[in-house]
């Protein structure tokens, strides 16, 4: 069974600074997709970034980037120039034949 682990229940970052959220996963599949979703207090899940496992190049979306280490089964999210609006729960997710989410990391942004 595929499992997704987020080892940081809570993280805090100063506004304008950089923070990295960690995620590891366990799978025997070779083709899969990885996602980071953001869930603000409104509880609306929003896609932040996604990565195809067959692509070696790390995905980037504006201030968000990932460090995808396939051999290590690691998929961390880096948020640069953190903004107050980045405060939310962040969920790492894995998709192959099914979809699995990590337990989440609560990110606090300090002004």
């Amino acid at each position, binding site marked *: 069974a595929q499992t997704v682990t987020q080892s940081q229940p809570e993280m805090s970052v100063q506004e304008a600074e950089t923070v990295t959220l960690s995620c590891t996963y366990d799978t025997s599949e070779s083709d899969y997709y990885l996602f980071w979703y953001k869930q603000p207090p409104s509880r609306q899940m929003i896609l932040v970034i996604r990565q195809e496992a067959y692509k070696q190049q790390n995905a980037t979306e504006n201030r968000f980037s990932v460090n995808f280490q396939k051999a290590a089964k690691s998929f961390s999210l880096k948020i640069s120039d953190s903004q107050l609006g980045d405060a939310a729960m962040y969920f790492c*997710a894995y998709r192959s034949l099914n*979809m699995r*989410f990590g337990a989440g990391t609560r990110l606090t942004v300090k002004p």
Partner: protein
Amino acid sequence: GAGVSQSPSNKVTEKGKDVELRCDPISGHTALYWYRQRLGQGLEFLIYFQGNSAPDKSGLPSDRFSAERTGESVSTLTIQRTQQEDSAVYLCASSSTLGLAGGGETQYFGPGTRLLVL
């Protein structure tokens, strides 16, 4: 509609009652997922519909839980004889995924239904 909608947004029920939660996916999306999110926790997969294929029910926690979907449209999640442990937010998501080859398509989530069982 422009996005995934769910109804009701909130539901309070008494222990032992049955409840039905509704999800309207984005038009044209063949895949539909139901998740449960308990307070302060991550998303727990419940069930997955893909087109006319048999649904993946591997995440349903007990036989009190069932879901239906008519074609590629509305889905209903039914919880029979509700228990207090069923209290959670139930999230629905849809995507245009079609099998593993299209597995990278993004899931679009509804706002969820908050269920409280007294």
